[in-house]
Structures are given as structure tokens and as C-alpha cells.
């Protein structure tokens, strides 16, 4: 099951946020939440790389609690995709890379009205992203 998605750029600006099956809210504003999230990712990334006893290669990939898993994918341009799912979901990295090339590149990068470095406001992107996420087998409620 997919809960929510954050997209950050390389400077930590929240480019886009969307949620689907989120049952518990953080109780702080979305702005604060995004800053908190980015701060944690930044720290986790540097922690993982520092503490790694061998070459960390890709570094931080995901973490899991007993209730949810947070998946992290960073592309070469520094764009970061953060997806929260239930703990059984697999193949998230591929899913996020597909989302990047089929939705982000197509409907944000190729939209002449998007200004580089600003949050995405295009309805078309929103629609396409929502369709893409809902069409994924990962989306559905967990079958127990």
C-alpha cells in the first residue's frame, strides 16, 4: 500500500507532495513537515555513508518500522523521491525511477511554464502522477 510521496530538489525545496492512504497526520504544517523530513534524510544519508564499514555505494536506500517503510531514491540531478509504503511492498526503486522518467520528466521538465527550482503546480502533472500511482500494483490496500 502506498501512503504518501515527497519530491525534493537538490537544494531541499519540496517540489511536490501527495498522499493517498495516510491515516495519521503529523500535526505540524506541511512546510515544517517537509523541512523535518529533508533534514532527517540529509542526516541519515551522511550518517549511513560515514558509519559504513565498507564502500557504501548507493548509500541510504530505505528504513522500515513495524508499521511502514520509507523508500528513498536520488537521481543524478539530485532530485529526491521519498515514498512511504506498508512494510511488505517491494520493487519500489524501479517504481520511483519509472515515475521519474515517465511522469516527472514528461510533465514537469517538458512543461515550459514550470520554472526551474519552484514547486510544481501543474494540474496535468498532478493527474498523471495520481493515475500512475493508482495503476501500480503497489497501490492497493494490503491483503492480509
Amino acid at each position, binding site marked *: 500500500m502506498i501512503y504518501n510521496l515527497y519530491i525534493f530538489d537538490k537544494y531541499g525545496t519540496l517540489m511536490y507532495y501527495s498522499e493517498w492512504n495516510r491515516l495519521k497526520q503529523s500535526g505540524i504544517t506541511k512546510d515544517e513537515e517537509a523541512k523535518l523530513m529533508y533534514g532527517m534524510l540529509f542526516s541519515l544519508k551522511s550518517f549511513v555513508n560515514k558509519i559504513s564499514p565498507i564502500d557504501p555505494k548507493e548509500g541510504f536506500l530505505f528504513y522500515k518500522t513495524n508499521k511502514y517503510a520509507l523508500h528513498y531514491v536520488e537521481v543524478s540531478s539530485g532530485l529526491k523521491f521519498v515514498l512511504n509504503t506498508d512494510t511488505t511492498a517491494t520493487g519500489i526503486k524501479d517504481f520511483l525511477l519509472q515515475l521519474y522518467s515517465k511522469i516527472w520528466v*514528461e*510533465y514537469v521538465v*517538458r*512543461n*515550459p*511554464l514550470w520554472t526551474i527550482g519552484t514547486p510544481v503546480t*501543474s*494540474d*496535468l502533472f498532478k*493527474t498523471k502522477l495520481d493515475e500512475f500511482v493508482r495503476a501500480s500494483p503497489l497501490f492497493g490496500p494490503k491483503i492480509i
Partner: protein
Amino acid sequence: MAEEAIFEYLHSEIVSYTLNKEGDKENDLSALEYIGYTTGYRIIERLTREWPRFKDELDTMKFICTDFWSSIYRKQIDNLRTNHQGVYVLQDNAFRFLTRLSTGSQYLEHAPKFVAFTCGLVRGSLANLGITSVVTAEVQTMPSCKFHIQVNRG
């Protein structure tokens, strides 16, 4: 599709550059239209070299809708209409410069900026084929666009 992307990005930069440069003259699309005109004029020279001379005006319009459009936008015009009095309406249901913008009315106010170049392109091409015209565009719901061609017969 690298070469398509580069044409798209260059076009969108030309749009924002020419419009920002004008400063106080808001929404002056004439510079864009003129760039389109000269581009169209030049394109025709090479594109028609394999073609026999066109029979008449309608024949020329058909060429614009099919081969000309395909070579630039990788698709043909979806609908061509005329009143046989020198007015032609070319409808593209998924006009390239609009497909990434919206599929509804969001950003509709920006649409004219992204069709001005193409209006010029069509006018320039027709000019080099011996047809003087005025080309305007109409966008009601993106990404669909209608190009109105009014031929000047004088």
C-alpha cells in the same frame, strides 16, 4: 527523441525570451510570429524539392496539413475545413507545444504564446508557395488548437 526535445526546449526559451524582452509591451507576439515566418519560408525551400508544383490552393493546404506538419510536429493535422472562399481551418487535437501544459483550462491564458511561432510558420510557408495570408490561432481546450488561415486575394 532527443532532437524533438531540443526543438521543444529551444522554442519555449524563445517564447520566454522574446516576451520578457518587450517589457512593458505586454503580450506582443509579433516577434515570435516573425521568427516563425522566416523559419517557415526557409523550410519550404528544402521540403518541397521532391514535389511537383501544387495544382491549386487546396492542394497546397493539404500539403501543409500532411507532409509539412509531419516533418515538424511528427503528426498530421487532424481536421481541415474550408469555405472555398479563401478561409481554411486546420485543427490539431494534440498540438505539440500544448500537450505538456494542460488537458483542460489551466494555463489557458498562456496558450497564445505557444502558438504564435506556428502561426508565423504556416504564414511563411504559404508565402513562399505564393499564397499571401493571415494566420491566427484559437485555443479553447488544451491541447487542441485551431489555426485559421485567411488567404489574401488581391
